[in-house]
């Protein structure tokens, strides 16, 4: 078969490991795909690059921007990637030491407190509102502070300028070890089965290159399996884990020496959905939340966003 | 018109027709009628601020008169690079160019060879006693030297009509005398046409075929004095020149007295 040339957009995060593994171990080649990985600094531009045709596949959380691009007929979500599941360390809710000492010891006390988010419409925003909903106070009782960048939020939390935040476990654990931040809860208590990130492609690919998309997902899932086995379930043994970390280190934390990078990579390993399964229920909930916040048009349906023809959904 | 023609039309005549000029509310020149014949030097004298420099700018085509027109008759000689050439009262040297560079500026737009241009520059710099200073920048020159650079630059383009605005004012009497001799020599050889603004009556009678006395602002032609003695023959003490100078002097003094009276009473 002729070789398809495709471009995959990625961030230098452990959560994109499946792509790296599939690339390094030749799974893409096996599927007749010649892949070029383009690196980005944020998920948003990947979506734009897919819309413009510069990139074929990408991984990102479901965001307002993604939904609007899908609404314009530019992109489609085709599978799931990161996923919260019981028993595995998931996103955690943090409080600054100052706020903790002042009584913010459980998420229930978040009423009237400030909460860091990157932007309105981001996953942090969603999490904050879900907490409010479950704890039974008005969403507006949490004071959201849009700070754009994770780094900035960390700075603000450490220096006590915001009271609370939620974040993936390896960052959360790292922070909580320090004297200035305390852990006060788990996101999975508020959003069970949270579909954190998804894999998506251009609407054109989803409609006209179904075969190629399937092959991509197959290779991607194989990479995900290796990753899960080596670092999440740890069933492949220490040697395989070590190899995996080395492989990932080629792409992530490259500027740090291996010894320093390895723990961060290991800590940051979260389960990637087997076979890119997609939790459509949770995606629907997210869409409903976006609509309830007037961030996207009320007329958008789940079918506009997701093409569920490629992977198992639930 | 061209009086000194050697068979063909060679010199350029200038004709000023009823020229009036003003800046905003200030009337500067009123109804100036004047003909400058080819090969003739016309000196313009008049009180400070009466519009002499303005008149020269109008003649040179650097400004347009409010009314009236300046006409040019005859063809410029072929070897003239810039028929109507100016020597500015405030020198107008480019501060970023050396003496040499300032002179060469006037030559660069003409198709003359590097060699020829170097020769011209050497010639005019030695005539203005600036050869030692060819590499100096304007800020390193004395006032008189700057003025000499401006003269050298004007000479370099072999003008057919020279418009000179107090070209020797910043020079010591001796250098002035030398440069005046130089200009007279030049005129004897090439009989260029010139309009020469000066406030030095001695210069005016040495150098002018006719001397136009302007009234104070708004400048009008008050009197035109013709001097018949040939330029080459106006050596040191000459009774008739002395007399003309005295006459000019009295004209100017009257003008100034009138101005003073006006100031007192008006």
């Amino acid at each position, binding site marked *: 078969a002729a070789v398809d040339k495709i471009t995959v957009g990625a961030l230098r995060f452990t959560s994109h490991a499946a792509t790296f593994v599939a690339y390094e171990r030749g799974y893409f080649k096996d599927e007749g795909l010649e892949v070029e990985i383009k690196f980005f600094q944020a998920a*948003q531009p990947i*979506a*734009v690059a897919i*819309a*413009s045709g510069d990139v074929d596949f990408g991984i990102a959380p479901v*965001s*307002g*921007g*993604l939904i*609007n*691009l899908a609404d*314009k007929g*530019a992109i489609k979500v085709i599978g799931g990637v990161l996923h919260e599941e019981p028993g595995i360390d998931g996103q955690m809710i943090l409080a600054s030491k100052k706020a903790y000492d002042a009584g913010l010891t459980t998420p229930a006390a978040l009423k009237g407190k400030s909460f860091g988010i990157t*932007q*309105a*419409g*981001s996953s942090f925003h969603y999490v904050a509102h879900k907490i409010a909903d479950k704890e039974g106070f008005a969403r507006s009782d949490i004071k959201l*502070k*849009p*700070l*754009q*960048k994770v*780094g*900035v939020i*960390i*700075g*603000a939390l450490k*220096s006590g*300028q*915001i009271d609370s935040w939620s974040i993936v476990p390896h960052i959360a654990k790292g922070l909580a070890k320090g004297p200035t931040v305390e852990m006060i809860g788990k996101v999975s208590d508020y959003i069970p089965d949270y579909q954190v990130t998804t894999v998506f492609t251009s609407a054109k690919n989803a409609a006209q290159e179904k075969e190629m998309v399937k092959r991509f997902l197959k290779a991607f899932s194989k990479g995900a399996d290796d990753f899960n086995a080596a670092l999440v379930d740890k069933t492949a043994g220490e040697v395989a884990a070590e190899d995996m970390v080395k492989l990932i280190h080629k792409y992530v934390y490259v500027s740090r020496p291996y010894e320093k990078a390895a723990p961060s990579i290991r800590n940051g390993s979260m389960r990637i959905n087997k076979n890119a399964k997609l939790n459509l229920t949770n995606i629907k909930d997210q869409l409903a939340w976006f609509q309830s916040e007037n*961030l*996207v048009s009320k007329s958008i349906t789940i079918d506009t966003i997701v093409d569920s023809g490629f992977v198992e959904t639930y | *018109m061209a009086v000194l023609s050697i068979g063909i*039309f060679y010199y350029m005549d*200038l*004709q000023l027709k009823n020229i009036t000029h003003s800046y905003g509310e200030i009337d500067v020149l009123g109804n100036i009628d004047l003909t400058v014949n080819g090969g003739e030097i016309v000196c313009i004298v008049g009180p400070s601020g009466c519009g002499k420099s303005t008149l020269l*700018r109008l*003649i*040179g*085509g*650097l*400004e*347009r008169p409010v009314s009236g*027109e*300046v*006409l*040019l*008759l*005859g063809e410029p000689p072929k070897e003239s690079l810039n028929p*109507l050439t100016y020597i500015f009262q405030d020198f107008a040297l480019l501060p970023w160019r050396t003496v040499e560079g300032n002179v060469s500026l006037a030559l660069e737009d003409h198709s003359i060879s590097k060699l020829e241009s170097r020769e011209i520059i050497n010639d005019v710099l030695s005539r203005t006693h600036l050869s030692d200073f060819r590499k100096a920048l304007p800020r390193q020159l004395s006032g008189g030297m700057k003025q000499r650079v401006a003269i050298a630059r004007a000479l370099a383009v072999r003008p057919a009509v020279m418009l000179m605005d107090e070209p020797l004012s910043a020079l010591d009497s001796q250098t002035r005398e030398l440069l005046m001799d130089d200009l007279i020599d030049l005129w004897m050889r090439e009989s260029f046409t010139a309009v020469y603004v000066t406030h030095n009556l001695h210069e005016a009678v040495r150098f002018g075929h006719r001397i136009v006395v302007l009234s104070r602002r708004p400048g009008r032609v008050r009197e035109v004095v013709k001097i018949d003695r040939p330029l080459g023959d106006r050596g040191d003490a000459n009774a008739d020149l002395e007399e003309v100078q005295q006459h000019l002097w009295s004209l100017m003094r009257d003008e100034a007295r009138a101005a003073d009276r006006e100031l007192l009473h008006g």
Partner: protein
Amino acid sequence: MVNDRARPVPFRGGGFKHKPAVAVSLLVFVVLILFWEVGSRTGFISNLVLPAPSEAFTALLQLIETDMLWKHLSASLQRLILGWTFGTLFGVCVGLLIGLFSIVRAGLSPLVSAIFAIPKIAMLPLFIIWFGIGEGSKVATILFGTFFPTVIATYGGVDNVDRTLIRMGQSFGLSWLSIVRKIIIPGALPAILSGFRISASIGIILLVAAEMIGAEFGIGAYILLAGSLMATDQLIAGVSILSLMGLTMAWLIGKAENYFLKWRM
């Protein structure tokens, strides 16, 4: 008599002067926007990222109707005015110091070059620590961003002041301060005002960076939100407000130039 060969002296002067032509300015804008609208309608310009001006205009109207425009605008203007005023003020002061004292120049001018080149966005985490996530850090971002270009423009202007005028001032026994106030500052003013044009635009640009940190209202915050939602009509609406602010600043500085530099002709 060859009067038929008489011709007026060719006019060589003139030019290199400016006549205002407001009509042309307006025309350029109108033509550009029309072209864009037509391009969008015919699909020549992809609607994916660049919406038609009419759509952006609708978004703008919505902003006005919901009374949000004033909230955003007043928040941003306050930051801009504070940041720009102090940034240029300090900038002129430091620029003067650098221009006037060799020792300050040696000490500060490399520092200015070094710090100017540091991207404000990279420094946001630090700004938060120093100035908090309230108005302080926002104003500080704009202040820093406008400070450096002003410094450079100012000392460039001071360097260009005619030294003979300074010698004149000294010969009349003017005090050092008088020379600075009456000779150096007016002489450097054209360059300083030209620097203001640049710093005003930079200040407006930095509204976006400034409002990245915990801003609820502000044109920059509005644009950021629109961008993250890929709401391109709102994005363009927000950006065009910034453009209008840029135009207004340029117009004001043009007025100031006309007033302060009328001696230049």
